[in-house]
């Protein structure tokens, strides 16, 4: 059969299929896209129930071998030991949106009681989480949330407002209350990053910050080299840039490293969210005055307790319930089953050496 | 005087084929020793053993009376033995100069290559050979003749004491041949020994002192050239009278089946025109590199052509499409059996049916043993000797491999059969079978085009002989006109239109 005929026929078939499918097809919004099975807090909470011993608690970070999560999960480990559970950490070696799914499946296969996870993608792991919950597991998300209907509780490191306030305050005093600033973020769709950036813009509307202007938002994709290049780009594109805010540990470290080696050192202020270990050097050499971060270990710690409480029936994840979290004390569950760790800690010359994470 | 290099009843076999049986040969310093024999007589194997590419299964090689066992071509070269191959393999990306000196480039300080010296060396060599090639051009795109010259230059650069030339002049113009001979003679005066393998008896007689004839992998005779006549030599080569060897019976040619008109491929061949009638065998003679294979490749659609056209039974053939050629009833038994004729790793059955997969399938599906039956039938018709149909075709002897190639094409029932070097490297017995087969096919009304470097074969088989030289047809000779001389004349372009 000749090429032409072949192609013609092919086209014909396609055309028909298109025609058929085009009419009366499923279009956006024409159907409910949430999982009916994805249910909210169920059953009755018994605040006085003791924490069950021997719970299997599994931590599933965005990516194993990521220092931040290693610390966070470490906190979780100590918590699990406190309430005599069995801790383990599993996870993919690269942070792909879907790479967590097979691990969740595995965990529910293993009849794990509590899954504490930080979602690479708010949707990708929803299905798996729900089937895990149907199989009896309690799901706690921390650091980055999934859709609310896919987990029991979300332990938020800090409220967006908290971060925004803190970051704007820091940069404002470092640049003396006026001038152009830029933001070096992680990836353009990192849920929390975008939320924070929005809230920072809100903050800057306040009269005392009227002279400060965000001229650009750059994305370093949480990669050293990319963040490096983006920082260069910012400084070059905006000659009279006064300061950079990088609310992500990788970004702020890369930016600091670039500044400390460049002519801009000391001239351009830098703050953001970073770990003391990464930033210590730059705080000491004066590249960075002060930066902030919650304590990841505490975050993991709290998440572990939340999970245990769920599994023991102390809480169900409903708003208003109280949660006793070991050394951290008592927390109250907010709407959508969100628990907030608390305001970030600020690190500077004075206190940085007291921290090691 | 004791021979410089000596073979003592050397034997060598490759799987099914016993290439050499008890061959002895001696080269003396200062002599040019001719080694003649038909293709497949074992010349190349002798050359390869001397050159260190093969090691003999039995017998020994002596250099200066000392037994030696060359581990590799490099080893042989280090012993002062150099070989010039008929179809050299070179490094297309590297310069001519580097091709000559690869692995032994002249070194300057700190062991780094001294390009100036290297270039000068090459220039001197080319001067001596009277070649005008830019040492710095890449080898890619060199004509066979130029590649030969580069190989010769390489051999010279080795200052070899024993120089082995396998058909070195096959692609050279007579001027170049003369120049080469001058060099060879000079070398001999310097005390080198040269083994000269060639089909061109006229050259052999003008250049060599002694001549060894081989046949079917055995030694036949060695005599001073002075005591020999061409006829004697030819008779020894073929082992019987030429006339009886090639039984082409005359058939009354039918209508024209294949017409080739003004076929041109720039820089390869130009303005090729001929036609073949049903029942006719047309020989396409000429030297290696004259463009014969290129012409038939273009006719069959392997290569594109820049001008002209090909007609089968009056219908114009789509250019550059083998499948179209097959559909039109053309079959090509290619020159290089191992590379082009067969898929060595595949079974005999698969190879034999490769050209007829569609007809053998039902509802688009193969199976039901139809392939096996067809393969068995055709291998039987051609008397292919094999163990199991499932054996890799590579395990067969050259002759049987060639039969498989023929089988897969005859199975398609072609109207035009083009055979390129149909009997290269196969034993006398099979050779005769092939020739009988070809003439029977002609008798059945198939139009046959036969490209062959073996003059006796062409002269014996062909009703008409077309002779090519450097991409042009320089003569068309009827059966009676065609003789060794007339063909060679036209083939070496010594007189345009020798006919």
């Amino acid at each position: 059969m000749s090429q032409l005929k072949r192609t013609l026929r092919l086209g014909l078939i396609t055309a028909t299929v298109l025609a058929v499918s085009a009419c009366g097809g499923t279009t956006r919004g024409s159907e409910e896209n949430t999982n009916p099975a994805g249910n909210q807090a169920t059953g009755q909470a018994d605040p006085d129930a003791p924490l069950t011993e021997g719970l299997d608690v599994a931590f599933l970070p965005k990516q194993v071998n990521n220092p931040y999560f290693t610390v966070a999960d470490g906190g979780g480990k100590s918590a699990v030991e406190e309430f005599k559970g069995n801790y383990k950490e599993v996870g993919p070696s690269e942070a792909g949106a879907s790479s967590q799914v097979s691990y969740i499946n595995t965990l529910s296969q293993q009849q794990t009681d509590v899954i504490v996870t930080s979602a690479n993608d708010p949707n990708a792991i929803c299905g798996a989480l729900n089937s895990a919950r149907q199989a009896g597991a309690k799901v706690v998300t921390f650091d980055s949330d999934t859709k609310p209907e896919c987990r029991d509780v979300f332990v938020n490191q800090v409220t967006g407002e908290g971060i925004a306030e803190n970051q704007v305050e820091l940069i404002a005093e470092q640049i003396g209350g006026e001038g152009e600033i830029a933001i070096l973020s992680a990836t353009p769709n990192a849920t929390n990053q975008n939320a924070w950036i929005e809230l920072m813009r809100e903050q800057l509307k306040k009269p005392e910050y009227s002279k400060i202007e965000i001229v650009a938002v750059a994305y370093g994709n949480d990669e050293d080299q990319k963040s490096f290049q983006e920082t260069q780009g910012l400084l070059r594109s905006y000659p009279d840039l006064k300061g950079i805010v990088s609310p992500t540990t990788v970004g702020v470290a890369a930016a600091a490293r670039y500044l400390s080696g460049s002519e801009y050192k000391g001239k351009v202020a830098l703050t953001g969210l970073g770990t003391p270990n990464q930033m210590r050097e730059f705080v000491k050499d004066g590249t960075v005055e002060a930066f902030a971060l919650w304590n990841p270990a505490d975050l993991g710690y709290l998440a572990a307790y939340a999970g245990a409480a769920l599994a023991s029936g102390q809480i169900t994840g409903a708003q208003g319930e109280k949660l006793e979290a070991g050394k951290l004390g008592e927390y109250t569950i907010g709407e959508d089953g969100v628990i907030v760790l608390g305001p970030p800690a600020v690190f500077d010359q004075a206190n940085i050496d007291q921290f090691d994470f | 005087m004791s021979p410089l290099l000596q073979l003592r009843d050397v034997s060598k076999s490759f799987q099914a084929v016993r290439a050499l049986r008890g061959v002895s040969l001696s080269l003396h310093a200062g002599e040019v020793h001719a080694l003649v024999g038909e293709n497949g007589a074992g010349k190349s194997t002798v050359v390869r053993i001397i050159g260190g590419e093969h090691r003999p299964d039995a017998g020994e090689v002596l250099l200066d009376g000392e037994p030696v066992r060359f581990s590799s071509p490099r080893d042989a070269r280090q012993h002062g033995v150099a070989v010039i191959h008929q179809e050299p393999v070179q490094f297309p990306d590297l310069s001519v100069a580097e091709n000559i000196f690869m692995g032994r480039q002249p070194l300057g300080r700190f062991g780094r290559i001294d390009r100036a010296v290297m270039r000068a060396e090459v220039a001197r060599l080319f001067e001596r050979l009277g070649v005008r090639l830019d040492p710095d051009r890449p080898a890619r795109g060199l004509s066979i003749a130029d590649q030969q010259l580069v190989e010769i230059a390489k051999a010279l650069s080795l200052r070899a004491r024993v120089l082995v030339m396998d058909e070195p002049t096959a692609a050279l113009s007579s001027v170049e041949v003369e120049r080469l001979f001058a060099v060879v003679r000079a070398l001999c005066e310097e005390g080198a020994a040269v083994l000269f393998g060639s089909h061109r008896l006229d050259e052999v007689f003008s250049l060599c002192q002694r001549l060894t004839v081989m046949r079917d992998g055995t030694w036949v005779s060695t005599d001073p050239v002075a005591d020999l006549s061409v006829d004697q030599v030819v008779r020894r080569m073929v082992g019987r009278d030429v006339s009886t060897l090639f039984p082409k019976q005359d058939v009354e040619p039918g209508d024209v089946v294949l017409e080739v008109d003004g076929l041109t491929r720039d820089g390869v061949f130009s303005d090729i025109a001929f036609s073949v009638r049903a029942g006719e065998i047309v020989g396409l003679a000429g030297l290696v590199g004259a463009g014969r294979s290129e012409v038939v490749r273009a006719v069959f659609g392997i290569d594109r052509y820049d001008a002209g056209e090909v007609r089968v039974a009056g219908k114009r053939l789509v250019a550059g499409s083998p499948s179209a050629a097959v559909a039109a009833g053309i079959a090509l038994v290619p020159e290089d059996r191992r590379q082009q004729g067969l898929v060595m790793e595949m079974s005999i059955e698969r190879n034999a049916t490769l050209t007829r997969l569609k007809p053998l399938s039902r509802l688009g599906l193969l199976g039901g043993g139809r392939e096996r039956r067809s393969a068995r039938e055709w291998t039987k018709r051609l008397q292919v000797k094999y163990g199991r149909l499932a054996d890799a075709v590579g395990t067969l002897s050259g002759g049987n491999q060639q039969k498989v190639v023929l089988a897969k094409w005859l199975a398609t029932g072609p109207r035009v059969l083009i055979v390129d070097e149909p009997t290269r490297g196969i034993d006398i017995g099979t050779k005769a079978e092939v020739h009988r087969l070809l003439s029977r096919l002609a008798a059945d009304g198939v139009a046959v085009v036969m490209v062959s470097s073996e003059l006796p074969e062409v002269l014996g088989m062909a009703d008409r002989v077309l002779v090519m030289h450097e991409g042009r047809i320089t003569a068309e000779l009827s059966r009676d006109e065609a003789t060794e001389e007339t063909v060679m004349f036209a083939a070496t372009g010594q007189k345009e239109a020798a006919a």
Partner: protein
Amino acid sequence: MAGDPAAVNVPAPPTETTHGVLRSALVRWDTALLVVLAAVVVVAGVLVEGFASGRNFQFLLLDVVAIALIALPLTLIVITGEIDLSVASTLGLCSAVMGQLWVAGLPLELVVVLVVGLGAVLGAVNAVFVTKFALPSLAVTIGTLAAYRGLAFVVLGDQAVADFPFRWTDAASSTVADGAVPWAAVVTIVLAVVFGVVLHATPFGRSLYAMGNNAEAATFAGIRVARAKFWLFVASGAVSGLAGVYWTLRFASARADNAAGLELAVVAAVLLGGVSIFGGRGTLLGVLLGVLLLGAVRNALQLADVAADTLNIVTGGLLIASVVVPNVVAMSRTRLRRRPRHPA
């Protein structure tokens, strides 16, 4: 002498022998894989808690479906001696476009058709470079590997489109009669049968082996090498597009970085399945077994709480072993056979 049938049994020179041994080894390769796979399943079933359950079986299949799908056309491509490294990027680009089209409000049925079509087009681009311009497929598809993934990000940035109807996303992981066999796996098996028949029982498939072993000889036999390869690359693209649809729906999220790096897993599976990277050898069954073996091993080790790092080492090791072992065996046998022929 040459015609003497007995002569056929004389050992062949190295090259042929190697091939011979390799082939005979490969005839057994599928069987070997089957045995190993069975062994893995049994051992894991006994030692690893939770492995031998319908649900886990379902998870396992769901995990390998995408790889299996893409491996089908890739097998044919590798058998012809070419390679397509752009498959995962094609998947990603298709997923991204699928997201955008859905957002644009097109009916999902139409979107699916368009996306698969897009995949075919992307494959055709590879095909044109490889067959028309006669460029090495390795270089070409490394190029499109980067290009397609880049375009995927251009199309969708780092956004994720996630609001696909539940009915569809659920279907992607739903099982036949709510048993252990996902529908996706059924589709894959059907396609596998189609590709298997094409490869092993049609003139087209037969010609693929020929051109893989010796393209020149295939051309001289009147086989349209370029055309065959062209359609294979198109098929590869289309199937990758289909895999993109599956991936997007299964994870309910269209993203540019979907399946990044999956090409390595697929190539690994194909080679483990006994397909020669040089072309001319391999069976579709072998490849499917290879896919399952890799999947089963990973799944079992995961259940046994083996860290992801070790999984990678195992994958790499399996891949290397799958090519080194047959070679070494072949070479040693060759040596054994040749020794007597050198009374030196």
